[in-house]
């Protein structure tokens, strides 16, 4: 199915998506949006892993994507549990309010 696509296109696409995620982490204050931008960055890396797996005709890259997905799922589960507990105590998930760990 692949015709006329070079690996450079996937390099550029992954770079752009990764940087959109990085800008989101820097520019937003809502902690849940920051989590979603981290997911976006992980997905950019996953896409590049699959592209190189296809390029080298090697399944290891795709298996690595499985592990990245498992780690991302674990991270999201624990992170959202922490966030909901913080929201219960502080009534906010604004990173500027959460800056001090005193309360």
């Amino acid at each position, binding site marked *: 199915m692949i015709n006329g696509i070079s690996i*450079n296109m996937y390099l550029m696409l992954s*770079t752009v998506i990764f940087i959109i995620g990085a800008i989101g982490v820097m*520019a937003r204050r809502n902690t849940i949006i920051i989590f979603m931008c981290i997911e976006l960055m992980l997905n950019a890396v996953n896409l590049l892993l699959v592209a190189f797996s296809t390029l080298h005709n090697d399944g290891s890259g795709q298996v690595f994507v*499985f592990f990245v997905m498992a780690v991302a799922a674990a991270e999201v589960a624990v992170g959202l*549990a922490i966030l909901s507990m913080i929201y219960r105590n502080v009534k906010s998930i604004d990173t500027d309010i959460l800056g001090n760990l005193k309360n």
Partner: protein
Amino acid sequence: MLGYTITQWVFGILSFLAIMFALMVVFSRNPVNSVLYLVLTFFCIAGHYLVLNAQFLAVVHIAVYAGAIMVLFLFVIMLMNLNQDTEPQKTTISKIIAGVIGGMLLLVLVGVLKGTEQIQLSQYGHSEIGLVKNLGNVLFKEFLFPFEIVSVLLLAALVGAIMIGKKEIK
């Protein structure tokens, strides 16, 4: 069609949509809209997996990300009752700084990657590698130990999420 193959058209449209939806995730004011745009981004990335002959991974990606993780995000956002009015906004100056830093990073990475060799994927493309049979062979022969470790990690995350999310820890 205009000198491009059908795969190039599919790639271009999917890339454009993925980048647009990713931008909407970052710039939309309402967190619920952000989640929905992120789901659309994941669908575009699953389309890319299909183009790359990673069929099984595309299905798993939709099931895990769009099906499980995003539903978790939506639950939490709706439990916290977040909407446009409660959305905290950074000051304009820090948004500009974030944009400039991201732009510089983009400039550096594109500049570095621009000079790399143009290798066509078609001369290596092989339709068998993304199927369950081959992936299972690799996963359970070469990566058996990491697979077991991941199961322990998921168990630890399960216990941790329940412990943290409990109402009162005595």
